[in-house]
Every structure is written in C-alpha cells, then in structure tokens.
C-alpha cells in the first residue's frame, strides 16, 4: 500500500472521485423506524438511584453551600491563584513575572524603613489580587490585563519617585 501524497497533482480518477463524492447526499434517512427494535435489546433500567449518585449530589450541594457561605469565593472578591500555581504561560503570568521581578529589584535597592511605604504597596497588592480574581474568569480580557499592567506601572513609578528623593528625607516623612 502506498501513502497518499497530498502534494501530487490530481489524476483524472481523482477528479472523477471528487465529483462522485460531491454528488452524494449529505445525509440519509433509514427506510423504516429502527428505534423499537433497538429499544427491545436494551437492559431494564433500575428504578432506584445508586448510593454513590446521592453521595455525589450531596458533595455538589455542599460545595455550592460553601461558596454561598464564604463571601471571599463569591463575585466581587474572587481570590486569585498564587503565582506559583500558574502552570500555563498566559498573558497574566507573563505580566506578573516581568513586573514582580522588577518590583523586587527596586525594593531591594530602596530598603525603606518607613511603614507607610509598606502600607501603600499592600494597597496595590490588594488591587492586583482583585484584578487577578476577575482574570481567573476572563483570562484574556484586554482591559483587565491593561489594569494589571497599570497597577504595576504605578508601583514602579512610586518606588522610582521614592528612590529619587533623598532616602533619609523620605524616611523622615
């Protein structure tokens, strides 16, 4: 048997075959109703649901109830997966990788003791978590990705501004 070569020119036989295929109807109905015969061959159905099915239903109900009780799992405050758990190279992942390393480098260079700087960065971290929570539903949403990008740019600009002023002046205030 010879492998078919798709790049080879079509012969007259091929053309004829194509024409024949095109002439075939797209669907065909059976000449009679086949269902009664098939139904007769089926095994009888159990009237009672198996115990494992009830257990599965209970598990689903418990999960739904936990989402309802835990507001942090509901819309508005969706929790984002930790960075380490992201296994696919999404746009979000790429942004986080780039910006988190830049941020860490800038913070390492600054070494601020002023607690207000930490509080300010925590506010951005919270906002990043919110945007990432929304991205967990809409991973490729460009406006959310842009928001994430902006949040990191703001942080880097903030750290850059602090680095530009005399650290002791900034620390004093």
């Amino acid at each position, binding site marked *: 048997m010879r492998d078919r070569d798709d790049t080879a020119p079509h012969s007259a036989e091929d053309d004829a075959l194509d024409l024949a295929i095109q002439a075939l109807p797209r669907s065909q109905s059976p000449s009679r109703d086949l269902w009664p015969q098939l139904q007769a061959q089926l095994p009888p159905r159990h009237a009672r649901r198996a115990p494992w099915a009830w257990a599965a239903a209970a598990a689903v109900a418990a999960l739904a109830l936990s989402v309802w009780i835990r507001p942090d799992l509901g*819309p*508005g*405050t*969706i929790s984002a997966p930790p960075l380490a758990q992201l296994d696919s190279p999404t746009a979000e992942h790429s942004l986080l990788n780039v910006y988190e390393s830049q941020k860490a480098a800038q913070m390492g260079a600054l070494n601020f003791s002023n607690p207000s700087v930490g509080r*300010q960065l925590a*506010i*951005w971290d919270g*906002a990043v978590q*919110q*945007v990432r*929570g*929304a991205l967990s*539903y*809409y991973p490729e*949403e460009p*406006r*959310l990705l*842009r*928001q994430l990008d*902006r*949040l990191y740019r*703001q942080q880097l600009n*903030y750290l850059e*501004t602090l680095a530009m*002023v*005399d*650290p*002791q*002046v*900034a620390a*004093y*205030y």
Partner: protein
Amino acid sequence: MKAILSKNALLLCLLLPFAANAQEPIDESRSVSANERISIEVMRGTVRIRPSDDNVFRVRGTIDEDAEGYTLESDNGFTSFEIDYPRSSRGRNWSDADDGSELEIEVPQGSELEFEGVSVDIDVMGITGGSDISTVNGDIIASELGNFVNLSAVNGEIDSRNNSGRIDISTINGEVTDNGSTGRIDYSTINGEIRANSSATEVSISTVNGEAVLSLAGTEVLELSTVNGDIDVRLADALTPRIDGSTVSGDLRLGLEPGISASFDISANSGGDIENDFSDDRPSRDRYGPRKHLNFSTGTGAGSVNITTVSGDIEIVPL
C-alpha cells in the same frame, strides 16, 4: 581700659557663632538671553519667581542660615543658581523651612525654568518658555505658566492657576488644585485629592487612593484611572468625546452632555454596579461569570465611552 577691652572680646566671642549662622542677604543680577535656560536649586525656605521686564536674572533676599554660600553662574544661554551647603549636611533633615532661604527671583518671561528643592515653598508665575518645578515637602503655587509645564511634589500641595500647554501635575500625598488650565493636562496622585476646573482638550487623571472631582469643559480626550479612590467628572461642551476609564474598587461618576453622540461600552467584571441614567438600556450579566456589561449608542455614536471596573460602581448621568 583693659577691663573694657576684655569684656568686649568676651562678648564678641559669645556672639560670633550666632553671627555665622544668621541669614545672609543676597542681591545679585546677571544679563541673560530672552530664552535663557535657568536652573535653580534651593533646599529649604520660600522662593518667589516672577517674570522680569528686561532680560535679567535677578535674585534678592536672604539665604539659609545653615548654608555656606551660593553659586551663581551664567554663560552662553545657561544660568544656574544654587544654595551651597557644607558636605556634612548631606542626608540631613530639611524640614525646618522657617530657617531656610527667602528669595525673590526674576527671570525673563520666555526663559525655560528648572527648579528643584526639598522643603521649599515655591510660588512661580508668568514664565512662558517652560517650567519644571519639583519639591519634596513644600507647596507649589504655579500660575500663568506656558509651554511644557511640569509640577511635582511628594508631600506638598500643588495649586495650578491658568496654566497652558502640556501640563503634568503629580504628587504622592499632596492635594492638587487646578483652575483655568488649557491645552493638555495630566493629573497624577497616589493619596492626594484632585480638584480641578479645566478647559484642556486632553485630560488624564490617575489616582490610587485619592478622590478626584473635576469640572471639565470642551475636553475631547479624557482618560480616568483609579484604584480605590472615587472619581467624579462633569464634562460639559463635549458632544463627541473619547473617554477611557478604569477603576478597581473606586467608584466612577461621569456627567455628560445630554446631546452626546457616542458609543458606550461599560463593563463591571466582578461585583461592581453599572447605573445608566442616560437611556433605558440596562446592563446584562454574563451567563457563566460575574461580569455585567452595558452597550449602547447615542446619536451617531461618533464619540466613545469605554469604562471598566472590577468591583467599583459606575454611574453615567446627563448634566
């Protein structure tokens, strides 16, 4: 006689340290070009800069009691003036502005000005060649500046009046007030509030926690961005504006002309509400996700209003 002399010598010895620290007077001037590039550095105190009637750089007043002098250089279209401090004062606390320099400076109206300070209040007016003014803890009052205007502070307040051109105003914690600006303007704060009445054709507002209240007229391009702060914008005399806005959890309220012609694309991605007082259109909710979406057009849809929020509320209302 000997006793009198020794008494005077003792008094002199006691007073000398105070005399050395007294604020020294300064009165200097240089002839400069009409579009001179002028750089001024004053660490603390109060500085007032005004346009001169002639092409002269002039500085009068007193210099910081802790300064060891000043440097004034003017050559080939560049003039720089700097208060000098002993090397031991590097990294010092400049917070005590009352003991700093008190200076009145005149520069040609068309000059390009760069000013830098730490704890210095600066009041600058009428420079049209461009101004780059920055201070850390002092306040800035800037009026009737033109061309490229950059006003920045860390903790200080910024009061901008009737400036025009390409204007950038930024603070971290200070409050921003702007009245009568035209051209293009960017407001940026982290925690500071923004209050503005502007006729700029392009406006950009960025805040993290600060609240912003703006009354705009004739703005064609408007960008709004906040993290937690609320933004309230009233945009008059703009029938086909292009508006882009985003908020994480801050609320955004937008008042627009009733006759606006624009396509609206508003989305709340995770819990935010959308209130539309412009038309009967109501937001729809995604079947498999928390997002709410509102799309509609008014008039020919020539302008655009694109706003996105995560959990903040968005409200659009006719003026």
